[in-house]
């Protein structure tokens, strides 16, 4: 194959990868939005849709991995092409995790929905936390799709706010359970939802940081969500699991 033909094939492969990545990113945002809707309105239909979206994302992630390996093996990409491929490989896992946590939230919505038809009014902070998390996911996805490193430079600040909300919500939920306003079985589930949202926000930060790397070649280490202080236990890996 001539060099020109090789470059055409690389361009086509990158285009295909980009299209798959865009689909995966959009599906991850759809999953979190539907999961929160299912929690707020206790909608079994929406919860089931999240399961379908999560399955589709799982399959698409493998296709993307194949795309990336083929591009590296066949075209020996360098510079921005290489950064685009390695970024796609890395953040496809972040999108997959967002889908997986959304599925977990949808499962909880089915469980708690049997006890209470709507999200208790006392949990308006959970709704605010969900809104901010969705905003972070949306921002990082737009940054990836639009190749815009500038728009995610402050995403770490939103993550700090989500972390604070998670800590506050934990105390709030414990108090509601102590005062018997919420049953322990319900409260424990909402604590998990808060935890999942906090994790999703971490993945949105990962995506944002990777977009910066993809566009500039610089890795923004200051905003990395890894190994943050977490109470008296000290270090934790905030993106595992």
């Amino acid at each position, binding site marked *: 194959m001539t060099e020109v033909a*090789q*470059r055409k094939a690389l361009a086509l492969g990158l285009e295909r990868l980009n299209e798959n990545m865009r689909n995966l990113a959009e599906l991850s945002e759809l999953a979190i939005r539907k999961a929160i809707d299912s929690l707020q309105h206790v909608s079994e239909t929406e919860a089931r849709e999240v399961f379908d979206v999560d399955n589709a994302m799982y399959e698409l992630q493998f296709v993307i991995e194949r795309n990336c390996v083929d591009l590296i093996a066949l075209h020996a990409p*360098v*510079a*921005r092409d*290489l*950064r685009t491929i390695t970024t796609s490989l890395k953040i496809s896992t972040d999108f997959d995790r967002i889908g997986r946590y959304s599925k977990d939230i949808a499962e909880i919505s089915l469980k708690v929905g049997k006890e209470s038809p709507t999200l208790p009014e006392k949990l308006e902070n959970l709704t605010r936390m969900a809104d901010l998390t969705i905003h972070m996911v949306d921002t990082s996805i737009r940054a990836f799709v639009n190749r815009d490193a500038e728009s995610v430079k402050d995403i770490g600040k939103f993550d700090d706010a989500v972390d604070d909300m998670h800590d506050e919500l934990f105390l709030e939920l414990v108090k509601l359970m102590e005062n018997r306003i919420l049953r322990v079985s319900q409260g424990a589930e909402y604590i998990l939802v808060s935890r999942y949202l906090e994790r999703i926000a971490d993945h949105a930060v990962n995506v944002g940081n990777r977009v910066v790397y993809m566009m500039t070649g*610089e890795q923004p280490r200051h905003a990395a969500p890894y190994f943050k202080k977490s109470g008296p236990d000290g270090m934790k890996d905030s993106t595992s699991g």
Partner: protein
Amino acid sequence: MEYQQSNGVHPAKIRAVDVSAYYGSKKAIDSVTLDIPEKTVTAIIGPSGCGKSTFIRCLNRMHEVIPRAKVTGAILLDGEDILVQDPVQLRRRVGMVFQRANPFPTMTIYDNVAAGLRLNGVRDRNILDQRVLRSLKQAALWDEVKDELNSPGMRLSGGQQQRLCIARALAVEPEVLLMDEPCSALDPIATAKIEDLIYDLKKSYTLVVVTHNMQQAARVAEFTAFMYLGRLVEYDRTQKIFENPAEKLTENYITGRFG
């Protein structure tokens, strides 16, 4: 300039300062300034006609052999200007391997390797034997030719002939080895052997490799220089050049978006 390496500091072996080269009135290299660190591999890449071969031919004064060719600026080898040195002595210190293997056609394998030594006045058979043995081993050719040292060099395969030429260059114990597209006429297996050889040789020599094959530059070189239209566009660690080049022109060239 000094280059910090994981295994220590490599001072500049060669410094090219504001070097321009001409063929008659045509300027082939325009004010190139770069340091080539000692005991490392430096690759020079760029499209055909960008001046990369001309540049390395300046480093051992081969460029001046061409009628009406001229070099300006300064080229320092260990701090001393090569343009005022005896070219024959200089070429003993700065050897060269060319694109097409060019063993002396009428000579045996042994005589090909010993030719440079004999030109430098070495007549002692023991010394010649030792140097031929060591050079062929350094060039990773000994095991393949040890039983046919008196056969003609031209009988060897293309890849073997290229390694024979490297052995010939190494026999006079140079400090710098210039390679002008050393693998462009070789198949992938012969190419891999030469690349392994380059990897081993950098422990003892300073190597400068001109190549059209960017993956080869990425595989073998610690530093890469990108030249275009006679100018040095970018020179940096190879990882930097291939992962995140500073210049748009470099990025366009290495990713194939060059028009």
